């Protein structure tokens, strides 16, 4: 089996309520299906509020799903008993965006890295201790850092600690939720390189969540583009960047700044602001901003279809094209 994680028709809805007491349902993750293959880096791209972080939390069972399944190495996480799920958690880990926010300010660096082993009672005291030292080395920190507290280290170092903690139990799968977005450029590269090296040496699989398209292009093997709780396009990274099919993906790419003064100036894609996620339109979610919207887009919600091998897109433009060409 090459699929490590299988997400099937996953939905996460929130009951929200304003201060005035009006109830509404937020479709944060809406009928999402995809697989993460062993040893790949699947990137999840989207703008703020598209549901990518909620999706990550739901996969990890940190957030209750509304419906759907998540299979990890063949086991349905949503159906597991609490104890079994806890045991399985050793194999999947998470790294967050804010390096300092992901460390308990009152726990020393050494203890933070040791905590996973304490929680799962792995090894003897001495073994845990030497593992802490090993992990510090693995992420490029000095053994002396173990005695420090989070406020005594920099953001880049804190992110290394968070990575070391995630690796403590030899996981197979790591969800990295915007792991470099709050770091400075020069530190970003260090962390991205570290993550790449660790994947190669430890055989890890990543679900990499990001909004920076340049970072994603550099770092991922496949890319899924999310919009308002849905995956609208999923393809191999090179293919997606070379030939984006969904109008939203095209607009995103057109909007990304190109770090080249000689590149021809492009007019930005005027696609307006993201509509209110509380009232998704009945048809395609992107219809209100789409330059190519057709009648059918207002009425029928497009499904994610494999229009070419390994290239999935949820857009009415493509099945039509295919039909007319065949």
């Amino acid at each position, binding site marked *: 089996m090459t699929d490590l994680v299988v997400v099937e028709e996953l939905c996460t809805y929130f009951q929200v309520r304003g201060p005035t007491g009006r109830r509404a349902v937020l479709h944060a993750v809406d009928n999402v299906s995809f697989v993460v293959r062993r040893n790949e880096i699947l990137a999840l791209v989207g*703008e*703020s509020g598209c549901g990518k972080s909620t999706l990550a939390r739901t996969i990890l069972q940190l957030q209750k799903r509304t419906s759907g399944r998540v299979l990890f190495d063949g086991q349905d996480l949503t159906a597991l008993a609490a104890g079994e799920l806890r045991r399985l958690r050793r194999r999947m880990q998470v790294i967050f965006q804010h390096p300092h926010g992901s460390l308990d300010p009152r726990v020393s660096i050494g203890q933070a890295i040791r905590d996973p082993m304490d929680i799962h009672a792995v090894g003897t005291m001495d073994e845990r201790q030497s593992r802490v030292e090993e992990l510090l080395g693995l992420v490029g920190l000095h053994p002396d850092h173990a005695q420090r507290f989070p406020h005594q280290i*920099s953001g*880049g*170092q804190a992110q290394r600690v968070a990575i070391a903690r995630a690796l403590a139990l030899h996981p197979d799968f790591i969800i990295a939720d915007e792991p470099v977005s709050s770091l*400075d*450029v*020069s*530190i*970003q*590269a*260090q962390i*991205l*390189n570290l993550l*790449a090296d660790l994947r190669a040496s430890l055989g890890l699989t990543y679900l990499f969540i990001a*909004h*920076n*398209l*340049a*970072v994603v*292009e*550099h*770092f991922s093997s496949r890319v899924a583009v999310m919009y308002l709780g849905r995956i609208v396009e999923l393809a191999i990274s*090179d293919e997606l*960047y070379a030939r984006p099919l969904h109008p939203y993906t095209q*607009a*995103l*790419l*057109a*909007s*990304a*700044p*190109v*770090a*080249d*003064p*000689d*590149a021809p*100036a492009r*007019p*930005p*894609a*005027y*696609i307006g*602001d*993201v509509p209110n996620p509380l009232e998704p339109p009945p048809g395609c979610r992107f219809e209100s901003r789409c330059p190519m919207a057709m009648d059918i887009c207002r009425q029928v919600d497009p499904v994610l279809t494999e229009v070419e091998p390994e290239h999935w897109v949820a857009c009415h433009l493509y099945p039509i094209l295919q039909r007319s060409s065949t």
Partner: protein
Amino acid sequence: MREPPLLEVEDLRVEFPTPKGSVRAADGVSFRVWPSEIVGLVGESGCGKSVTTLALMRLVRPPGRFSGRIVFKGRNLMALSEHEMRLLRGGEMAMIFQNPMTALDPVFTVGDQIAEVFQSHPQLRTGDVRTAAAAVLEQVRIPNPRAQLNAYPHQFSGGMAQRVMIGMGLAGRPSLLIADEPTTALDVSVQAQILDLLRAIREKLHTAVILITHDLAITAQLCDRIVVMYAGQVVEASPTRELFRAPRHPYTRGLLDSMPRLGHKRARLEQIPGQPPDLRALPVGCRFAPRCPRAEERCRTEEPVLVSSGDGRYVRCHFPLEAR
């Protein structure tokens, strides 16, 4: 560029007292801005780019102190009275901020806040303030401007709120607009629109812009020149094209190489080792020396100065890079 510069900053220092002596958040910053030019002020967090611009507006609040020479349109800003300075702010010099949602007062309508700019500057007195305010919103492409005057900031999206901020800045028909990370809090698609708006403003109104950012990619297509700051100092200043083509300071080169760039997939990013110094414990000599692959003994003992190489380029390095 024969005409005199619009803004000349020389040896600007901004200090904040701390228990262990004062910290120089900006230390001897010098640069110039010519009329209708877009200058990118680039650097990582804590490099002093934001305090520098606050000092330009004389908005550094006590206990912070600042000194140096700031000449704007031939007037020495350090010598102006507080009243004259106030008329300049929001008039010929405007500023917009990183997070438009926190930079707008939540309890007053947008129209009210725009009207204040007209009321505070006698030189801008127009007939009907509401009409003038609506025109401001129209200028930044906000649909249905007259109705939006009655809206409160929280009713706008981030991108629309940033347009409102820019509009307010333009109300005084400034010749210099300082934009402090204007798109950092916004999504990519909205960011592109805001940057395009800044470009259009320069074309139409000939407003010079200082764009403060940590993202070099943003500056590539927007800025005419780039000023790179590191640990409170300007380390390199250069026209954009030359800077991207042949950075002269090792830090600039490091930044360019460590940045993933769209359409240039590489097996591995170059990285600058270590991290920026703590301003409370600066190294002797060049501030970048501990992280610099080219550092020699001289770099660790003698602090380099910002020198011009004659072609409009400046670099603060003992051993500047030659063209690749």
